[in-house]
């Protein structure tokens, strides 16, 4: 990584025309992935990403420039470009940097590079074989094992110089069940901020079986009915509901410019009092965890909503300037090619006081969303959507036949009021969240919850 002396020199150039803040971000990422299809290793992905992003602020005006040329000349040229664009004045600046070492909350015991290729391919095969053997109707299984080894350096004109390395490992299995002319699918994708020791906690065989089970369930499912009804949403990836319906609207990215339905609502009751929601990037080894954010700010636990009252937004450096509020350790970016902005880490609805069985038995007719897929939201209006990948009809308080092809839509402000029962089996699910600063690893999570009324986008019988 770049040394302190060179960083000081580059920052001084970036600051030389009047900027009031400058920052260097360097990334060195080694991505390794193994892909299996038809029971055979089909491809190996092996990429090295390397580059630098230099940023300067003047008030809330920003300039960002990136380069893969990390020679001294390349960096100075890039910094001079930034200086040219941010201001016209001439200023002699000298930058002093002090190295800060943040404790590593996610120490890795087994680096993927130290583990024999055979051991890694065996894990992938074990998962995919378990899926294939689940039922003779499982017609295809695709699996991938991803290892990301990501080292970042952040240095800025406030004397910070820090280097952080984090690893992530993820297994994905996607199974297709086929019955003549119809295909159905099931997907699982457990991941952690860990090395290969992740498989001491995750059983590849169980993951494979689970993907196959979902595909088989959907094969016998009829289309989900359409209309408004109560919905019970299961734990784990079910937490995507909070991520989409509310989380994005609490990011400074939209709040700071007044483009969020949640702007100006701090201290107000925005959700049902049963709802307490937290964003916590410090959870050891969790998929969305980070030691420091991509501006070098240590990660922290932020209570976003407490008993229905809005307590905090998620704020990056630029958001902090615009909002006059402190940074919260939520600044993230996919890599050097992206200017950072406020993003989620591990975001979840905390356990509540309702018993899970009471939640199901309280619903006379509705939908039990056992597994959720992804979704999206427009923060201005709060209109969101997400898909149900395993669902069942609830009749007279009992979970009945499976249904497929459903999505749930609504607006954030409304659904937060309508989450009227919160269970006690909090669990997280892993996802990749895409936004302005690229794709970042995030956990979503919740216990089983009940939404008293929501639009279920299914297919009504014609």
């Amino acid at each position, binding site marked *: 990584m770049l040394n302190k002396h060179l960083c000081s020199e580059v920052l001084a150039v970036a600051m030389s025309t009047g900027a009031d803040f400058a920052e260097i971000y360097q990334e060195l990422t080694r991505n390794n992935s*193994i892909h299996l*299809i038809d029971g*055979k290793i089909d*491809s*190996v*992905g*092996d*990429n*090295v*990403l*390397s*580059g630098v992003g230099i940023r300067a602020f003047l008030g*809330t*005006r920003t*300039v*960002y420039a*990136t*380069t893969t040329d990390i020679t001294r000349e390349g960096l100075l040229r890039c910094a001079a*470009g930034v200086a040219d664009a941010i201001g016209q004045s001439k200023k002699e600046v000298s930058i002093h940097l002090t190295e800060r070492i943040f404790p590593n909350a996610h120490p890795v015991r087994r680096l993927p590079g130290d583990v024999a290729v055979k051991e890694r*391919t065996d894990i992938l095969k074990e998962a995919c074989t378990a899926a294939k053997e689940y039922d003779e109707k499982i*017609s295809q299984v695709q699996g991938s094992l991803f290892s990301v080894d990501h080292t970042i350096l952040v240095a800025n004109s406030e004397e910070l110089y820090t280097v952080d390395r984090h690893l992530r490992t993820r297994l994905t299995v996607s199974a297709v069940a*086929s019955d003549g002319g119809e*295909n*159905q*699918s099931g997907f699982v994708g457990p991941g952690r901020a860990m090395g290969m020791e992740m498989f001491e906690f995750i059983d590849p065989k169980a993951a494979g079986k689970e993907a196959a089970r979902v595909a088989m369930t*959907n094969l016998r499912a009829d*289309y*989900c009915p*359409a*209309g*408004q009804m109560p919905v019970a949403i299961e734990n784990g990836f079910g937490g995507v509901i909070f991520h989409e319906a509310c989380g994005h609207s609490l990011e400074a990215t*939209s709040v700071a*410019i*007044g*483009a969020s*339905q949640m702007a100006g609502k701090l201290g107000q009751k925005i959700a049902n009092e049963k709802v307490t929601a937290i964003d916590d990037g410090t959870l050891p080894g969790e998929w969305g965890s980070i030691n420091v954010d991509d501006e070098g700010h240590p990660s922290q636990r932020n209570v976003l909503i407490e008993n229905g009252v809005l307590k905090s937004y998620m704020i990056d450096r630029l958001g902090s300037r615009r909002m006059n509020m402190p940074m919260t350790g939520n600044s993230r970016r996919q890599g050097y*090619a992206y200017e950072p902005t406020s993003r989620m880490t591990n975001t979840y609805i905390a356990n509540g006081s309702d018993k899970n069985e009471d939640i199901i038995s309280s619903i006379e007719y509705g939908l039990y969303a056992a597994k959720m*897929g*992804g*979704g*999206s939201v*427009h923060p*201005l*209006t709060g*209109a*969101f*959507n*997400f*898909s149900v990948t395993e669902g069942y009809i609830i009749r007279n308080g009992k979970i009945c036949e499976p249904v497929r*092809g459903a*999505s749930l*839509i609504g*607006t954030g402000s409304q659904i937060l009021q309508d989450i009227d029962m919160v269970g006690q089996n909090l669990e997280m699910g892993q996802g990749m969240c895409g936004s302005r600063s690229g794709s970042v690893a995030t956990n979503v999570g919740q216990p089983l919850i009940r939404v008293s009324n929501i*639009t*279920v*986008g*299914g*297919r*009504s019988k*014609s």
Partner: protein
Amino acid sequence: MKFESMKEIIVRAAKEAGLDEYELYYYADEDMSVGALKQEIDSFSSGNSQGIDFRCKVNGKMGYASTELFEEEELTALVSRAMENAKSIESDDEVDIFPGSPKYEKVEIKEPPVPNAAQMTEVTLALQNKVYSLSDKIADGTRSSASCGKIETCLYNSYGLELTASYGLQYGVVQVNVKDGDEASFGFEVAEGATMEELGEIADKAVAEALSKLGAGLVETGHYPIVISGKQMRSLLSTFSSVFSSRAAQKGLSLLAGKEGEKIAADCVTIMDDPFRPGSIQAAFDGEGVATSRKCIVENGTLNTLLYNLSTAKKAGRESTGNGARHNGIRFFNFYIAAGEASDEELLRKANGGIYITEVKGLHAGANATTGDFSIESAGFMIEDGKLGRPVKSFTIAGNFFELLKQIDTVGNDVKFGISGGSTMFGSPDVYIPQMSVAGK
């Protein structure tokens, strides 16, 4: 480091390692963007990056590795990493390095723009000012930006094949938020161009879109005649495009497997893939160096061919269609539903009492290419007296892509293309479907 020096180091390492078949794929891109918030410039960004993707054949298997780090040691390691990766491959798919096509189409090169920060700043502010002048309901968070970029690629392999391509693009984006009391809505428009003459219209369009959606109501759950606008239909086509991939078909992941020569869509549906469409970013060769061609994928409802690369073509005992992507994938060029004959008025008249869909969201989640099922958040306008009536939102349209292809009754006469970030672009005219399932209130 210049490409020629990188090439020299890598070729030397490949020869020393005793490799007979190998290929380098080099890219270099540059981009610049100016953005405004409220009525001031708030952001400026620029980037340049280079990368090399290397592949080689070891014992009949292809291995890959890529890097953006250009130290000699790293470039040499690139060769050994790819060789090592090849040893893990078990697939029987035959992947080859290609010696070259006899002839390549001469394509029109879009001249890379010369980035001009001053002009871009001026246009961005002019767009933003225009937006604010059009309505007093314009709200915070409204953004305009002007961007330009260029990319150069070079493919070089052990057969001595050397192909280069380059293209440039300039475009403007307007993202409008409007507020009326407690109600908010938004509009979004993007177009190619660098001057206000070329881009000015996007401000009008985005503001008109945002204002037209204010006061949107709900619809009753039920079945409705539907017109899907070209912009939205092309998103659906893009989401489900992988079903036209021969690789997906051969792996049992597309329900179009084995359907070549069969009727898969209504008579009025014709789908093209055209690497040479005038005005688009044209491509003479694909990711494997094979000459591209213009072809009719679906002709009056009949599936003529899927898209093939060298490996899937070999397996099927036929020729590549020139749709290879790097890493043995399938690449689409200008992939679009061809224009029909119906005017806008005719489509709306046919769909009277139905809904005109102008927005679909969350396709990455609400649509599944393996099953064809979709259930997607939508917004649009009721069609009343053969004209667009009140705006509606917060409903889903649900169906199955394979059924939808057969249900299309009428195709409009104007194909809407997006702007492309690369050489893949999707397009579609408006289409009329007599009945679709809608979930609303």
